[in-house]
């Protein structure tokens, strides 16, 4: 089972939700290549829409899951 790297961006304000997501992705790129999963938690819907595109531009796959009212998880892997 792949080990998950967790990033919690709930309550973060614009544009840091996007900036920190991109920064984390760059930071753990090697780990994702080795099979790890990056899980990011948000309460910011627009990020849920444009992160999958950013992720695929960088050659990774993503899955969006609505956990509860106003809360999402994006799982990113190779």
């Amino acid at each position, binding site marked *: 089972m792949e080990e998950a790297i967790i990033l919690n961006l709930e309550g973060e*304000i*614009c*544009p*840091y939700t996007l900036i920190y997501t991109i920064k984390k992705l760059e930071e753990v790129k090697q780990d994702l290549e080795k099979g790890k999963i990056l899980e990011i938690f948000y309460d910011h*819907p627009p990020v849920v*829409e444009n992160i999958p595109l950013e992720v695929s531009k960088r050659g990774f796959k993503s899955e969006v899951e609505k956990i509860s*009212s*106003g809360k999402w998880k994006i799982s990113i892997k190779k």
Partner: protein
Amino acid sequence: MNILWIGFIVGFLLGVVIERGFYCFYLALSNFALTRDYRLIKATIWAFLVTMIGFHALHTLGIQKLDPKTFFLGGSIIGAILFGLGMSLTGSCIVGTPMRAWRGQVGYMIALLGMAVGGWLAIFKGPLVPIVKALQKPTEVLINGKVATLDRLLGINHWILVIIVAVLLIWWLIKIERKEKAQQIPQEKSGFFKGTWGPVFTGIALGIVEIIAFASGKSPAGLGGFIKGYATIFNGIFTHKIPLNDWGTIEVIGIMVGAVLSAIISGDFRITFPPLKRIPALFFGGMLIGIGAVLAVGGCNVAHLISHVPQFSIGSIVSMIFIIGTAYPLIKWKAKG
């Protein structure tokens, strides 16, 4: 109790539209700056197009006269810079702030309080009031004794400018469409109370709300007066009165009711708290938005960009240049940091 019902209805509709569309101009700028995502820019262009054509048509049909904001060389510029700084601190715009607050984000309720306090300091009480006044009327720039508009400056009929601007904007929308097709932007499935509205629907809906506001004849020419509304409510702490027959006041109450109801029905409502370290920026950013908007001829990004630039107000055009010119480079700087 005298209630300006049309103001409440307009505010309510605006609250629903911004909540369902997750509309925020600061987000439009930052999405574009960071990921070349045009969606909220598209929504803004659509809102602008609908508003521009609607306002000028209503004027020509004799239903409601255009009433573009004037140009205060001091206020329009300094106010816009302060507004841009405020947006950069809160990470939201004049409607993005209540939109997030009424989805349950406590940090943005703090930002709204900041906006109310800032507006109160600029309008009602304290040393800022005379400074604001000094930067306004005494620095006014008119054209032949009338409000400075682009059509007046160029000496052309306003409809010629409407056509030129409409053609340019439609050309821009086509360019964006092509870029998005190349990027293969996923089209999210959403319903009226499900997911987030698409940008075209959001933009057109925003434009329609603008036209209702304008046609009512009771508003400061379209949507606007938000800061005055928040400041007046804050002032109610001292006067023990909240005038519900005041456009700005009833409009922001309507926004709150519309946005909260919409968020609850869509399952978007959730109380969340900001990281503690963000609270000063949210409050002081809100204050700068409040002070900046009052200084800039009582104009925020919605009043300027979607209510008054479509009327070709030079003051609003200048203010928008400085708002974007302040906020956009700061987004790029934040991304580097």
